[in-house]
């Protein structure tokens, strides 16, 4: 079970990073801007994998401690944490050399939902009831 959970975290993290990087490319092209010096692809990959692994660990612990209600509690917590995390990019101050800081949340806020989306999407492949 533990190995499956770690694999779930890793795979969902890689998928979320891939989605984030594709979205980033499309966003840069359509808006003619480039925040890649701030949102580095390596950091996107590492953060997504970390988020996936943390979610797996959290899921594993909660379902172990609370076999009946653990899963629903985890789902709520994961979604609430994901929503709360968007405060970060909205309040982020870019270096003053960037012309259009108002476009920054449009890039980063959706990215914050990708780890949760990827984790919930691939979870049935790794955890079968």
């Amino acid at each position: 079970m533990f190995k499956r959970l770690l694999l779930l975290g890793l795979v969902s993290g890689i998928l979320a990073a891939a989605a984030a990087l594709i979205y980033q490319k499309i966003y840069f092209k359509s808006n003619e801007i480039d925040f890649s010096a701030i949102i580095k692809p390596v950091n996107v990959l590492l953060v997504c994998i970390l988020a996936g692994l943390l979610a797996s660990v959290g899921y594993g612990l909660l379902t172990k401690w609370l076999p009946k209600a653990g899963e629903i509690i985890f789902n709520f917590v994961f979604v609430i944490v994901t929503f709360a995390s968007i405060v970060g990019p909205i309040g982020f101050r870019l270096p003053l050399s960037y012309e259009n800081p108002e476009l920054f949340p449009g890039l980063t806020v959706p990215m914050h939902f990708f780890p949760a989306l990827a984790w919930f999407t691939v979870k049935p492949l790794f955890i079968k009831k």
Partner: protein
Amino acid sequence: MKKLIISMATLLAITAVFAFTVLAQNWTITNKYNIQFSSNDVGGIFKTFTGSIAFDETNLAASKFDVTIDVNSINTGNGLQNKHAKSAEWFDAAKYPAIKFTSTKIVKAGAAYQVTGNLQIHGVTKEFTIPFTFKKAGAGATFNGSFTINRSDFKIGKPGGEVAEQIKVEVAVPVTKG
């Protein structure tokens, strides 16, 4: 004959004064300027700065600054803060799109200078003195100034609150002869 001499002398005097005025060097503002502001928790730049500068270290009486900052070019590094700064509560950029400064007097102050003039922000015009230095480098030069503005003097934002009353402004304006 006497009248003719007086007329000629007056004309000569006017011409001399006019020539003296023209002698102040005109400077063209390059695009490498930096208009920066900061306080305890906010800071940013104005990206658009235009105007005319006539400055001669040896002829301060003929020197003149007439510059404008585009309020809509404010950049704090955060989109929401930019929008907030341009709103009616702060700069009200829709109603007052420019910050203007027109000099009335320039004096030497030690190794530096002081320019006094009318500063217009947020529709409020006040006499304001800005200390500055002037450094020549080849065909160009740079004006540097650092001063503090009390935002409440110009009715910017509500008095008190999270943003400090005193806003530090730093100006660096490279110029070329022109």
